[in-house]
């Protein structure tokens, strides 16, 4: 959970990351949220090699070492608390709905005065749809606005009832060509485009987000196709372009997932503006 988040919707928001996602986008900045099992991150650049973590680990492990055997880790968190450099961190911890709602209740005063609320993000938040349902019911009682960030890949039938409770959705469309989509994310885009239409038809205000990546989707053809699709099927939706950044790189090493990391090129400011103008040309408003 991340409170005081200002980039995930209106006002001050508390973003709740629900782990688990069907896609494997090569540029993903949150690879730790692909799966739901617990993880222990090790930030090598912060580590001063003091071995405190090793000395406190009840399993006799050394989370700061190359050969750290994560299979034996019980995720007790002792090393995390002990590290004087804050170089260790647990991720994907199991939380029960009441604990999450308790935190939302505490933050509610800040939502009230800033027009903010909760943003469910991921991973893909609809993957944990049962948990999400419980949280959204709680939000409704608290009078807290709900925004969702979705990659679009989920089973509609499991989630259609949730749509009525969503005040706004950020919906990723990574590529209009299914084959290219599959190449970079592991899956085709048919379900995603279908879900986009259904969400829109259900009346949820939508902002389409494109992670703008030079090597993947920064071409006029793809962007025009996206704009046309929006014009035709997603009336009223807005566009937000999120230029690719390398900040996720550190996470791949922290979670010992270096092998999954792919480097891409960040588009220039001029390229981003040019991309926006395509959408403007199709009378699609910009999210701001």
């Amino acid at each position: 959970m991340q409170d005081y988040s200002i980039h995930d919707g209106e006002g001050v928001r508390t973003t709740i990351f629900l782990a688990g996602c069907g896609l494997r986008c090569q540029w993903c900045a949150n690879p730790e949220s692909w799966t739901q099992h617990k993880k222990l991150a090790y930030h090598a650049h912060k580590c001063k090699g003091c071995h405190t973590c090793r000395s406190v680990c009840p399993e006799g492990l050394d989370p700061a070492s190359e050969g750290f055997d994560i299979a034996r880790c019980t995720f007790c968190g002792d090393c995390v608390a002990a590290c004087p450099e804050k170089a260790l961190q647990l991720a994907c911890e199991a939380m029960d709905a009441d604990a999450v709602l308790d935190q939302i209740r505490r933050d509610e005063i800040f939502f009230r005065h800033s027009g903010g609320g909760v943003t469910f993000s991921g991973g893909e938040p609809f993957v944990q749809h049962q948990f999400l349902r419980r949280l959204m019911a709680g939000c409704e009682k608290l009078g807290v606005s709900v925004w969702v960030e979705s990659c679009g890949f989920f089973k509609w039938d499991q989630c259609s009832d949730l749509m009525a409770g969503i005040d706004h959705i950020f919906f990723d469309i990574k590529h209009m060509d299914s084959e290219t989509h599959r190449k970079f994310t592991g899956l085709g885009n048919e379900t995603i485009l279908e879900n986009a239409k259904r969400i829109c038809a259900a009346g949820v205000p939508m902002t389409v987000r494109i992670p703008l990546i030079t090597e993947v989707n920064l071409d006029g053809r793809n962007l025009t196709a996206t704009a046309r699709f929006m014009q035709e099927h997603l009336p009223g939706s807005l566009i937000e372009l999120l230029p690719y950044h390398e900040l996720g790189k550190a996470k791949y090493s922290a979670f010992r997932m270096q092998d999954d990391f792919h480097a891409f090129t960040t588009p220039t400011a001029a390229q981003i503006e040019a991309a926006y103008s395509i959408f403007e040309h199709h009378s699609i408003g910009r999210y701001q």
Partner: protein
Amino acid sequence: MLKTMTPVSDRIERLRQNYVNTKPSICYERAKIYTESHKKTEGKPTILRRAQAFYDFCAQFQVRIFEDELIVGTAGKFRRTGILTPEYSWKWVDKEMDTFPTRPQDPYQITPDQCDVVRAEIFPYWHGKSLEEHFLAALPEETARIAVDTGIIDNDSKWRQAVGEITPDYEGHLFVKGYGGILKDAEEKLATLDYLNAEDIDRIHYYQATILSAKAIILLANRYADLSENMAEEEADADRMAELLEIARVCRRVPEYPPQSFHEATQFIWFVQLGGIITENPLALNPGRYDQFMYPYYAADMDKGLLDKAGAKELIHALWLKYSEWVWTISENTTGYFAGYNQFQNLTVGGKKRDGSDATNELTYLCLEATDEVRTHQPGLSVRVQSDCPPEFLYAVSDLVSKGTGFPAIHNDQAGIQMLLQAGYEPEDARDWNNCGCVVPHFRQTGQWTSAVNVNFAAAMEYALNEGKSRLTGEKMGLEAKPLADYASYQEIEDATFEQVGNLIHHSVVSTVIAQKLHAEMVPRPFLSTCIGHCLEEGKDLSRGGAKYNVGPVLTGIGLAVVANSLAVIKKLVFEDKVTTLAELDAAMSADWEGYDALRTKALAVVKYGNDDDYVDAIARDLANYYYRKTRAYKDNFGSPFNSAFMGISNYIPTGRIVGATPCGRKATKPITEGVSPFAGSDVKSPLAAMRSSAKMNHDVHTGGTLLNLRLSEDLVSTPKGKRDLGGIIRAYFSLGAFHVQFNTLSTETLRKAQKNPEDYKDLLVRVAGYSTQFVNLSPEMQEAIIARSAHGSY
């Protein structure tokens, strides 16, 4: 060099560069003239001797107008000048003077020759005569051992220095009457008094002193007018010549007559400030509600076409620079508590008018802008945020926050009003509050010691846990206490800790009332009393309770979070989880945690104050409530109850130096905590949680003010949306009843760069606590403490 991007005039930029690049120098002229004067007035009533000395200064001091100046007047021969006031204290100066230029915090320039003059011609006269000497002689031994330069309870700024802590009443008094009017009133009053009435005698002396003081400041202004005229005659540049003539005209008029223009009002304010500096070398001589009392002059000049925005800005910039140039001369010990050449001149904008309506106006915004543009560390800019304030105002506040100067100090208007109501103010006066010093809600007709004593809570706890002794020295400093291992329950330990706090409060009160009595006898304040109408009416000096409101002195608790965190550790690890014993904890602290890494890890893992967890926050709240009740039970020399506060200054560093390791995991001598802020780095969750923790402290009863400092990542406030959102957060925090919050938004990276290349960052302002100052002017130790405050803002 960091350049100010915003437009200031070339002249202001030159003045600014001078301020940034000049080291303050000590000028002994004032001390010399005062000493010579006092030699001639022996035997006369003290208040008249003080007024005469001021008059002599105004008549004899060689006045100077420096290049580019628009607003004129200095208390010494340098632009950046500090003065000496040996009637308050001189021994520390005698001892420290030679190292003034080299001391780590707030060095001053003074040459060996100058030191010789001071030692030969000034100090000998004051042997046995200073406030300090009388105070130390009067203080009972059992109080002296914990109150004099110990860091346990500290009030040395009240017996080595003048009090200051006044907000001159421009709106209702000074600007209405002018010093000519005050003089006339005093003469009329005097005519009605008779030496044959015993009770009139003090009043006769008071009015005589008032007349002398008024004549003195008028004389000083006219001498500046003379000088300016002479300089105009010599001036080759036609523009500057016209300016000098205008300066002369202004100085002829004010402060003798009520001001008639924005320029005159500005110069008036500076003469009053100068009078205060010369007579007292005070801290916290507050401008007050500048946007309110200056607005009529601004609006009238704008209407008449005599002033445009740029012209108004230039005068504001010039005044801001004046506030920043002079230095409050203080001892090395005091610099630990008030670091950064800070004079605590608090200027408050926004809030409500006396009738309850919103008070913001154009000048409010100009003050916010000017503070960003000129980047001086003074005045201390405070804003009052009231529930119905314009969103634009809140946005302007966030915008200034985003500039990373640490300004403004942001206050909840409703809480401020509530604090004054509880202190017994009339509702209209309560709505008219301004800040004193850093975060003390105050009013322009008030006499109060707003920062009377710093009380070290962590030391009190140490005595409870260590048989009444200091862990570092082994000396018995607190009440008798049993060995730690003999305590049978958590509650017993908590009670013992609170009791030790109660003992420190007791000695703080003793020390304060003795100082109060001596101030009234030895260092009455004839000049600053002219700034408060009620003194003139009653014929009574401020130091004798002449103000309309005499509010009880403020005792500031330091280390609230450290004590709460430590007690929580004992409760959890010893009594609940039973993973350690009191004996082991005792040994660990005596060893400064050496060899107890595993235990320290466990201690650090216990939840800390600032994370919105009642387990520990409730302990902090109980302690704060206890502190309030205990403090309020004492009365000062005027019969006013003492007040509690959790404010800042930089006192959490020196107070930490004398405290051994604490159960919370803190190592010996490390800083403790300021105000109601969390321990540096322990508010790991988010600023929102830190705010929720802090808001649990019933702020509105601590009428001496509460303080919360937070660091925010620059990115959180770099966009318009971020600024709006910060406004929402401020409103939310205040809706919980909290009083104050202030943000540092510099990245750790920037601060590290500034440490490496101080030359390039001379004008980098940071929030210390309750005030901002140049980062490079802080000692390395202070800089580390600033960096250690956790920066919030990963997302």
